[in-house]
């Protein structure tokens, strides 16, 4: 097998492509963020991040991501279970592709559809009003933090269905049957077998959702027009040149800051993946 040494060769295009269009830009922005306006090495771009508005933006983004990921991962896990248990293969694949559309629609159409449904004149708002709940009685608007949570949940729950489905499919029929056969009830099976087995995958999916929510831009941009201070939105306005900053590379530092937060989520994801693989046969 003298060819084995060169087995990576056909993979070269892939490595070159991802290296140039994924890793190289990330490396570039990282290096630039450590340079000041004069092009010297410096940490000055990072000083604004430690306090004030930018720190607040990071806090808001992280809080939003945690809340939406918790809601979406729980809801999504629930839906996945029902889908996997009940749907035939054709229905499952249809549901899956619908989920893919919803998950990928974390974008502009979604924001406008929510405005249509939950806006002051929206049908949903009217239905809820009919049942005696005026969602606009308090301070709620779709353009607020709560509004963003609502919209994010809409595209992150289907994402959960997509990433969590393999874990649920990995639950072998033999386990529940053996559990019943040994005299345990369904609740015991879930408590002692299924939930412990699913937990690492669930945590991993949670981190993936967190990263997704944290970096989402389009929905918030179209919906809030800057009313909720999220890091991606601030970077967007810096790039658009709407804000005059005396630090040209501040946006780069913010971008790197986002990578760092996402990196922490990734470490969590990898750790969880490892734990999930621990019990896998062979």
């Amino acid at each position, binding site marked *: 097998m003298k060819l084995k040494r060169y*087995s*990576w060769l*056909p*993979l070269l*295009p*892939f490595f070159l*492509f*991802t290296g140039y*269009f*994924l890793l*190289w*830009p*990330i*490396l*570039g*922005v990282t290096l630039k963020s450590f340079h000041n306006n004069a092009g010297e090495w410096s940490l000055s771009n990072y000083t604004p991040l430690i306090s004030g508005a930018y720190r607040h933006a990071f806090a808001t983004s992280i809080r939003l991501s945690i809340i939406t990921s918790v809601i979406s991962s729980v809801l999504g896990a*629930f*839906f996945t279970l*029902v889908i996997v*248990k009940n749907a035939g*293969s*054709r229905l*499952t*694949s*249809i549901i899956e*592709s619908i989920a*893919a*559309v919803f998950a*990928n629609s974390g*974008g*502009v*159409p979604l924001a*406008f*559809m*929510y*405005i*249509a*449904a939950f806006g002051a*004149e*929206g*049908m949903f708002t009217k*239905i809820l009003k009919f049942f005696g709940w005026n969602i606009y009685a308090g301070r709620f608007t779709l353009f607020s933090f709560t509004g963003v949570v609502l919209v994010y949940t*809409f595209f992150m*729950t289907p994402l959960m269905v997509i990433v969590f489905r393999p874990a649920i499919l990995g639950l072998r029929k033999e386990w529940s049957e053996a559990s019943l056969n040994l005299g345990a009830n*369904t609740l015991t099976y879930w408590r002692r077998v299924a939930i412990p087995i699913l937990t690492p995958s669930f945590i991993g999916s949670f981190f993936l959702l967190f990263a*997704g929510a*944290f*970096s989402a*831009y*389009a929905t918030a*941009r179209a919906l809030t027009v800057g009313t909720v201070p999220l890091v*991606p939105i601030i*970077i967007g306005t810096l*790039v658009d040149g709407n804000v005059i900053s005396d630090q040209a590379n501040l946006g780069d530092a913010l*971008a790197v800051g*986002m*990578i760092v937060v*996402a990196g922490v*989520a990734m470490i969590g*994801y990898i750790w969880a993946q490892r734990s999930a693989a621990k019990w896998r046969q062979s």
Partner: protein
Amino acid sequence: MKIGRYSLNAFTIFLAGTIFFLPLLAAAEFSFRKPGGKGHSFTNYSWLLQQEGFLPALGTSLRLAVLSGALNLILMVPTMVVLNLKAKRYKSIVDFICILPLIIPVVSLAIGAQVSMPEFLQNTEYELVFFFVIVALPYTYRALDSAISAVDIKVLVEASRSLGATWFATIIKVIIPAIRSGIIGSLFLSFALAIGEFTLTSLLHWDTFPTWTVVAAQQNILGAIAISVFSFALAIFALTLVGILAARKKNQNLVLENEEVE
């Protein structure tokens, strides 16, 4: 216990319907409202077609989507086949790279692109194609990988080669038909993603369908909603079609399996 389970399922389906489909319906209803007045009409949809930017923006998006779908296949199909056939030990690294776009914020990638890409590339909207392929990687990787792992590709290739087929014939007549569902799925996913991509496009200052929509919304929110409903419905229709095509293949396998099962 049976009743409990049924009502739980019913509740879940109801919940999913409420969360996901009612907003869709609500938006659809909204998009047919007459501007300013009562009643419903196609006014908002016809307004769309009269807008000058609408068709060019849609055209740009379609063009970019077709190109990124094609580039995605050219890059990923050989990579995934080789990976599963000859270079299994590189699988974990490729797997890792393909999950990165889900984790690295697209905003950061966009800033990085402005820093690192050469001038000539930044001057053309086709630079987006490369990044659309990157952003679609997590999905296309999954689609292709699950299709390839479902068939024993090694045995297929060895059988084909030992019967005297050339590599070219093996790829065209054996591999591609065997992983057809994965190819269709990956193609549509990358296509749909490219059509709807907003973050990179907007931060790199290009005009496509989604960015045009945001600008149009400032003039006519009803029109923007109409666009959204239209594109959503289109995406669901297309992907359901893919789902059915892919499932038909699966069902054939299922029949064979059922004969084994008692």
